[in-house]
């Protein structure tokens, strides 16, 4: 082609002298090539309704004209079948045919213009709505504040586009956005061989009277074409009546126990009804200023659509969002409460503090404070609140605390409450989701719904919203921590926290409280045990100990492995001699507990030890100690063990009372595992690891050895502890005559000299469980938990409570969901799956919770919409049983689809129901102006429908342009009249570029 040669010649100089304008064209061509929009075969028109149902895609790039930056965007409908078709086209067999056909084929643009299958798509780019195109390019200024406001600039751009399109022989329509973006004005062009399409738009904010109806619009269209034509206009009348009515829902909330739910404002702002007439010929209908054939009741097609309020305020979402927002705050509880906490607590303690504590226990039977001053000095001093400045009033905080700790309530009151809560449970128990609700605690890492942590989460969330925000939150948390300490020190177990070792499948805070509960339990157990021991067996055991001591004195030898045992005895002796009162039991345990000892205590210990060894001639052979122990009354037996006899003495082997290993929360466990892992994989590391974990083993050896089974040996221990390491040997003849005595030997691994088991056994000392060093140091662990709690910033508290809150929110959503929207269930499933991941994450992440919350808000919104819609359609018709199903189906569709076709238009069930609704609405509107209308206008010809708020017309025809002898080509004009808003005409006029 000649142009190609020209291009070759010009190529060298082209880029050096290129003007802005040429560069713009070159870039445009480049983009067109890049996106493969050149020399494309025409596409078939999109299938019916595909514009709505199909997927719209877009590609974007930058393009500059001089220093003015544009965005160039390619919008296209992703046609599902296009792939196979394009393959067909490429196959060589079809090529010849294609070539022949090419002449007849109408370019995509033109088929699109004439296709009536996708008139008035419900959601699409505005250009799609105007012209019915399935692919097009839009060039918009990159900076939204800069607009192309002069016509000459638009013309320059448009002509550049034409040049580019011609050069690249692309037929894709290209639009340029002109004027301010909100006006949605585009002018465009599409260039094909021998013809071109001009796209032009008129946008007016006031509607010219003479063009506000079909007749006037036809005049415009005809004058533009300058020929007599027979257009086939289709008309769309949209009539959105305002059906908003306030929704009844609980706004605000009275209790601390449940989260609120629902939208504050009506989530559905309007219902729109579209009445459409398709493919009518010009002479079939008349619409002018005085008369209209377009009666909504006669329209062949009705479509309904609901307009949803954008981002309606939903209670649940708002509450949790406000709560979560604070997790970015950095203040500590002290920072927040500095001005309301009185500092001179210590001085005028008695009055203030007794009051503060009184608050917790006031008039309640459950408590029985032993000595107020005692508690005050230990725990109470931190929180004395200046009432006037506290964000939560005293009464409120009383209520909240009673809600959190129902066991502090008057028993009578409690009974009442119980029955109430039972009733409540019965009420909101939708059978639909029970299985789901039951699986929730397993899927989420949260706390049981009736637990203290769960209540606290919900309560704090509500406090945050309704009572003083972050400060109120800090205040309540402070109270909570104080209560925890109070309960620990006074040995009241926590209600609403299950009494077991921390459940690792629950959230950290719950584990911590479980830990604290274990500590309290242990403390109670320990103290009662000791009291029992002192009262009953004290004399016995002490006397036998004395015996042992005497023996050891007389023996006069020193053995290191017995030292510890003696220490134990010495302590007891000390205790006995110095003060024998039972009150002192705590001290005794503390001394035994070396890891948590303070240096001073340690020193004291050492002193004691030395003193003792000086005063007594402490040396003793191992054998003699066993001999002694035989005579000593065994202690701490649990039960006989499988009729197995001791190897040395032939006595029954007893399973001893053992100490349970210390419970751990997940963070402790993590820490512990990390320490173990850090020891590395070397042999030494493994050895060290084994030693670190042998505490329990040694403890068990101790109790078996001496306490329960005097005179037993390692073999006996192994037979109880690791039966598979005891190999019975039947062949060996028994030397003794006792046939019951079993013969056998330890497995090889137990016989390795220096293995941990053997060594541990060597150092085992006979001590019953309750006098051993505690494996589980409840004092230390409780202090750790309490420190953990009090060191938490409000932000940490929030984050740690999020799992429970999300759990509560999901339950709330499920309880309120009474619609059958499948999408809702999908999102719910998604929420739960995500929540299970987020709550299980090692580090709680606020961002993840925000995402989760967004999804939950969406759910809440959808449910609120469904509810709102249901309340609106509770007309008399609704009660008709036959129609109920059809109507409810329609409502469900309304919520799910952007637009719903109404079967049978005005004649159908749904149609007549809507008709009723409109009549009612009209009556209401007219009631307001009743007096005037009565006086002025007696003919009550009130139309059933309000004036349409918008009307849209599409006018189409085939007409020769620009001259009568030109080719007959498609012409189209789209008109949109929105009362009070705008008047828009968009024309696509094709002209023959050959015969003009």
């Amino acid at each position, binding site marked *: 082609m000649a142009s190609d040669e020209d291009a070759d010649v010009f190529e060298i100089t082209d880029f050096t002298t290129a003007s802005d304008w040429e560069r713009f064209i070159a870039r445009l061509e480049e983009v067109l090539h890049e996106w493969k929009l050149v020399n494309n075969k025409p596409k078939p028109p999109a299938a019916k309704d595909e514009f709505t149902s199909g997927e719209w895609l877009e590609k974007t790039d930058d393009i500059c004209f001089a220093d003015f930056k544009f965005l160039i965007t390619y919008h296209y409908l992703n046609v599902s079948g296009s792939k196979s078709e394009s393959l067909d086209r490429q196959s060589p067999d079809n090529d010849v045919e294609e070539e022949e056909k090419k002449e007849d084929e109408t370019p995509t643009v033109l088929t699109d213009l004439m296709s009536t299958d996708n008139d008035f798509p419900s959601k699409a780019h505005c250009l799609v709505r105007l012209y019915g195109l399935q692919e097009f390019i839009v060039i918009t200024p990159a900076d939204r504040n800069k607009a192309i406001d002069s016509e000459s600039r638009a013309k320059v751009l448009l002509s550049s586009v034409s040049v580019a399109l011609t050069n690249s022989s692309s037929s894709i329509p290209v639009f340029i956005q002109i004027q301010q973006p909100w006006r949605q004005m585009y002018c465009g062009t599409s260039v094909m061989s021998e013809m071109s399409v001009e796209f032009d738009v008129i946008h007016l904010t006031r509607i010219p009277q003479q063009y506000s109806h079909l007749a006037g619009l036809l005049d415009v269209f005809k004058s533009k074409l300058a020929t007599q034509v027979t257009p086939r206009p289709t008309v769309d009348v949209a009539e959105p009546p305002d059906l908003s009515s306030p929704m009844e829902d609980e706004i605000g909330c009275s209790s601390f126990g449940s989260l609120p739910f629902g939208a504050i404002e009506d989530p559905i702002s309007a219902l729109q009804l579209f009445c459409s007439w398709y493919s009518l010929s010009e002479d079939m209908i008349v619409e002018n200023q005085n008369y209209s054939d377009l009666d909504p009741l006669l329209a062949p097609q009705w479509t309904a659509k609901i307009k949803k309020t954008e981002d309606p305020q939903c209670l649940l979402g708002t509450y949790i969002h406000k709560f979560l927002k604070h997790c970015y705050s950095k203040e500590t509880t002290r920072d927040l409460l500095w001005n309301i906490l009185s500092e001179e607590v210590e001085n005028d303690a008695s009055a203030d503090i007794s009051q503060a504590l009184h608050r917790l226990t006031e008039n309640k039977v459950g408590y029985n404070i032993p000595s107020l001053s005692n508690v005050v000095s230990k725990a109470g001093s931190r929180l004395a609140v200046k009432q006037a400045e506290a964000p939560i009033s005293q009464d409120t905080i009383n209520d909240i605390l009673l809600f959190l700790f129902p066991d502090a309530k008057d028993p009578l009151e409690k009974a009442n409450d119980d029955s109430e809560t039972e009733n409540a449970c019965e009420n909101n128990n939708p059978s639909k989701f029970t299985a789901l609700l039951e699986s929730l605690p397993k899927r989420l890492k949260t706390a049981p719904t009736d637990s203290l942590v769960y209540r606290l989460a919900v309560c704090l969330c509500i406090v945050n919203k309704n009572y003083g925000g972050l400060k109120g939150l800090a205040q309540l948390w402070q109270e909570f921590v104080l209560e925890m300490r109070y309960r620990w020190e006074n040995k009241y177990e926590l209600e609403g926290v299950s009494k077991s070792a921390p459940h690792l499948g629950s959230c950290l805070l719950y584990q911590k409280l479980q830990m604290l509960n274990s500590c309290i339990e242990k403390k109670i157990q320990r103290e009662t045990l000791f009291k029992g021991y002192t009262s009953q067996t004290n004399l016995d055991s002490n006397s036998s100990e004395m015996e042992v001591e005497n023996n050891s004195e007389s023996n006069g030898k020193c053995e290191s492995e017995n030292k510890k045992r003696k220490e134990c005895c010495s302590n007891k002796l000390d205790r006995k001699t110095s003060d024998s009162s039972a009150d002192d039991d705590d001290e005794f345990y503390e001394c035994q507990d070396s890891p948590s000892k303070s240096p001073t205590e340690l020193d004291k210990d050492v002193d004691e030890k030395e003193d003792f060894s000086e005063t007594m001639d402490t040396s003793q052979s191992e054998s003699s100690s066993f001999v002694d122990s035989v005579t000593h009354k065994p202690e701490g037996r649990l039960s006989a063990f499988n009729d197995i006899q001791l190897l040395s003495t032939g006595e029954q082997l007893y399973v001893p009372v053992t100490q349970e*290993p210390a419970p751990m929360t997940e963070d402790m466990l993590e820490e512990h595992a990390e320490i173990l892992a850090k020891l590395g*994989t070397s042999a030494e590391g493994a050895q060290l690891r084994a030693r670190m974990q042998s505490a329990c083993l040694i403890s068990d050896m101790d109790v078996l050895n001496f306490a329960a089974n005097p005179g037993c040996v390692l073999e006996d221990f192994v037979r109880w502890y*690791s039966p*598979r390491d005891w190999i019975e040997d039947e062949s060996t003849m028994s030397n003794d005559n006792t046939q019951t005595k079993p013969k056998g030997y330890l497995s090889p691994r137990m016989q390795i000299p220096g293995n941990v088991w053997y060594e541990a056994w060597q150092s085992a000392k006979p001590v019953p469980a309750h006098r051993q060093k505690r494996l589980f140091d409840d004092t230390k662990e409780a202090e750790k938990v309490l420190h953990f709690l009090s060191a938490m910033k409000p932000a940490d508290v929030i984050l740690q409570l999020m799992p429970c809150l999300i759990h509560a929110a999901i339950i709330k959503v499920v309880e309120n969901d009474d619609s059958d929207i499948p999408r809702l269930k999908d999102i719910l499933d998604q929420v739960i799956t*995500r929540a299970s991941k987020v709550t299980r994450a090692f580090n709680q992440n606020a961002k993840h919770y925000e995402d989760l919350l967004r999804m939950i808000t969406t759910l809440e919104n959808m449910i609120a919409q469904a509810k709102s819609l249901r309340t609106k359609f509770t007309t008399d018709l609704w009660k008709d049983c036959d129609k109920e199903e059809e109507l409810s189906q329609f409502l469900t569709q309304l919520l*799910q689809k952007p637009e719903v076709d109404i079967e049978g238009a005005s004649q159908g069930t749904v149609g007549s129901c809507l008709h009723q609704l409109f009549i009612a609405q009209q009556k209401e509107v007219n009631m307001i102006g009743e007096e005037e209308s009565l006086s002025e206008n007696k003919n009550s010809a009130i139309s059933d429908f309000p004036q349409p708020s918008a009307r849209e017309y599409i006018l189409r025809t085939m007409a020769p342009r620009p001259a009568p002898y030109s080719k007959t080509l498609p012409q189209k004009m789209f008109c949109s009249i929105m009362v009070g808003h705008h008047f828009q005409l968009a024309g696509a006029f094709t002209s023959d570029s050959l015969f003009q």
Partner: protein
Amino acid sequence: MEQDVLTTLKILIIGESGVGKSSLLLRFTDDTFDPEQAATIGVDFKVKTLQVEGNRAKLAIWDTAGQERFRTLTPSYYRGAQGVILVYDVSSRQSFSKLETWLSELETFSTKHDIIKMLVGNKIDMDKREVSKEDGLKFARKHHMLFIEASAKTKEGVQCAFEELVEKIIQTPGLWETDRRGLQLERDGNTQQAACGGYCSVI
């Protein structure tokens, strides 16, 4: 080398005492065998990097003690494990019949629902066999486990058992994406989710 490790996997070895859990582990990690392997106390720990299908996975293997009394302690370490190797001794019927107990223990204490389980019948070098291969297969099928017979002494099946397990874990992406390195992946996932949420509210 460290940075192309795909993920760190936590693997557990459980089973009755004396079935050869530590020996299996030692054969796998150090390729050694000690007939007088000391009885494990509490838990032990080894690390090995393994190449599976072009992916390098770092294995943190926790070996547990089988004794009844330790069972109050060891389940704490089940937390977060992606794979578990359940070992029995083919020369001890008793070790096989206790498998159910171990499985229920696992069910109770593991935090991941889809943990991959492998059944290993150890000590096939021993002459005195009390559990047939069929029995092992049947048990594994019943409880949806991987199954292999092995011998820590002769090396047979050991490497294969670990490799198979890791491969299976890697093929189950939900299982290990939440790993520390996987956090990044998860973040990407989030944005998608968020976009999805946005879409929902549009309609």
